[in-house]
């Protein structure tokens, strides 16, 4: 049984009096000891999936179909109390901008300790001890003094390490990282990503859902990847096969526009047209207006995700 299983998830937003699908019929599984990348341009619904899993959607959004299972627990049906116990203990999340993720009026130590006390019911001394240990694990130098420091005394990288310390404080089974390194510069980025892999996957065997728009990040740390376009997964599989043999036209186009490939293959091609907004999503295969292989069929039918090669699934009429 997979660690985290998302089945036919559909999430809608209320805008201008109408419900619009941001995520439509998405399914994937996250196994233990695996980092699954969820990649796509901004606005494709990847963050919405994260908030749907955590059940932290804004008041104008709702899960209209599908289910999310954390092992034997159906998150979509779980009560708010159950979810509160679950969040931060079995299922954790870190965000994009570390500088605003922490409450500037409370010490860093306090924000770690309150999480420990909430879930593990530790007394102050034990919690403080555990917090010190966590800070050391995430690589905070001179942790003893830093416990009493305030968020404004930390750099972006350091703040994200603290967020990570909080997220892993109760040995979560699943960590969702929503663009954890986008706001950081490249050198810090690599450190954080490896820290995630070491602390979550290697040491605890947990699963990580890493949301990013940067294929470089995927390459660096993910085991498997799912490419999303306009609310749907168009292709997913293990990183090696996807990177070496991208099947879906959108995935291929993504790679062509990627300078980091290092291969000077002519001018960078960008995909003409724009990512469709929620309100004006085309019928059939969402990508067909911008797809160079588009055929009449693409307009009518929305291709399901199909096994095209071992470890690789794609939703495109070419491989039906």
């Amino acid at each position, binding site marked *: 049984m997979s660690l985290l299983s998302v089945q036919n998830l559909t999430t809608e937003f209320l805008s201008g009096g109408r419900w619009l699908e941001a995520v439509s019929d998405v399914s994937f599984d996250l196994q233990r000891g695996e980092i699954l990348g969820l990649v796509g341009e901004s606005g494709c619904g990847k963050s919405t999936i994260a908030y749907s899993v*955590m059940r*932290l959607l804004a*008041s104008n959004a709702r899960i209209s179909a599908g289910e999310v299972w954390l092992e034997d627990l159906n998150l979509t049906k779980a009560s708010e109390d159950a979810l*509160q*116990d*679950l*969040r*931060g*203990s079995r299922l*954790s*999340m*870190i*965000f994009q*901008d570390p500088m*605003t*993720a*922490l*409450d*500037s*009026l*409370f*010490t860093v130590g306090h924000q770690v300790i*309150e*999480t420990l006390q*909430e*879930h593990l019911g530790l007394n102050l001394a034990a919690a403080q001890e555990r917090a010190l240990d966590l800070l050391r694990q995430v690589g905070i130098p001179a942790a003893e*003094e*830093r*416990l*009493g*420091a*305030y968020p*404004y*005394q930390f750099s972006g990288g350091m703040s994200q390490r603290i*967020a990570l310390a*909080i*997220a892993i404080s109760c040995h979560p089974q699943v960590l969702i990282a929503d663009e954890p390194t986008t706001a950081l510069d490249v050198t810090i980025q690599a450190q954080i990503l490896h820290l995630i892999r070491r602390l979550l996957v290697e040491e605890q065997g947990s699963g990580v859902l890493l949301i990013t728009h940067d294929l470089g990040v995927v390459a660096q740390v993910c085991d498997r990847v799912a490419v999303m376009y306009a609310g749907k997964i168009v292709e997913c599989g293990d990183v090696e096969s996807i990177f070496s043999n991208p099947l879906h036209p959108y995935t291929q186009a993504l790679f062509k526009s990627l300078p980091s490939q290092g291969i000077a293959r002519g001018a960078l091609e960008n995909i003409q047209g724009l990512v469709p907004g929620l309100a004006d999503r085309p019928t059939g295969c969402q990508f067909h207006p911008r797809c160079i292989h588009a055929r009449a069929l693409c307009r009518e039918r929305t291709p399901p995700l199909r096994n095209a090669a071992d470890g690789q699934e794609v939703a495109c009429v070419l491989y039906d």
Partner: protein
Amino acid sequence: MRLLRYIAGRLLLLLPVLFGTSVLIFLLLRLIPGDPAQVILGLRATPERLAIVREELGLDLPVHLQYGQWLGKLLHGDLGKDFRSNESVSALLRVRLPVTIQLTLMSLTMAVLIAVPLGIRAAIRPGGIADRLSMLLGLFGISIPDFWLGIMLILLFALGLRMFPSSGYVRLDADLLGNLRAFFLPALTLAVGLSAVLVRITRSAVLEVLELDFVKFLRAKGLREQRVIYQHVLRNASIPIVTVIGLQFGYLLGGAVIVEEVFSLPGVGRLIVSYTLERNYPVVQAGMLVVAFLFIMVNLTTDVIYALLNPKIRGAGT
């Protein structure tokens, strides 16, 4: 600590401002036409008597000498004597100040108890009952003149239902229950206006904090909603709320004169106004100076609370 240096700086600034205020008050009073001696003697004034009284009160000296005399005595803690009854002004203020301060504290406490919880609930459940209530209170509270509200409350609760006295001051040490009953309606009258402003400030402050990223992270780490709101969100929203409460405290010191008048409470505001009419300079000067001093101290306290709340400003953290 930077905070102590900050407070010391502000206290130093206090002296010149108070000095400026005292000069302004002193001149303003003497510029208003009307001779104190005439008011004292009333219809029974005779030219000789007027001369005697003016000399007794030192009104025949040139203005700058009068100011020098007054300032000299002030620095020794002597606020001078009431022109009319020769009673020491500090004795008068000892009766009047507690009344205004009690009225200010009671009305502010009532306002905070009404407005802050309502404002928070209105922000947490937009469109709910609390939200609509806060809108109504916010709108009608500042539109209804407080002296009219006072009269209506007297008409209903004092004259009508006889639940509260319609006026008069009962000393705290003399009769606690009587004092609280006497202060209830005036404090409530002021509290309505104050809470109207406070509820809107609280609501918008909480709304703004709720949209900050760290609240998402707090919920993502499974903190109980109760703790998220009342520990983290409220603490962050408290800065604008404290600012408004500080401003309102300052306003009430002098501004509550109208409600003091409606309920005939012997407060400082009413003292200043009625004694200005009688040109009773020492009492008015002392009254205004005390109000200005308290006003500035309250502003300083608000800024200090700022610093206490915001670690960055006070340079806290190891």
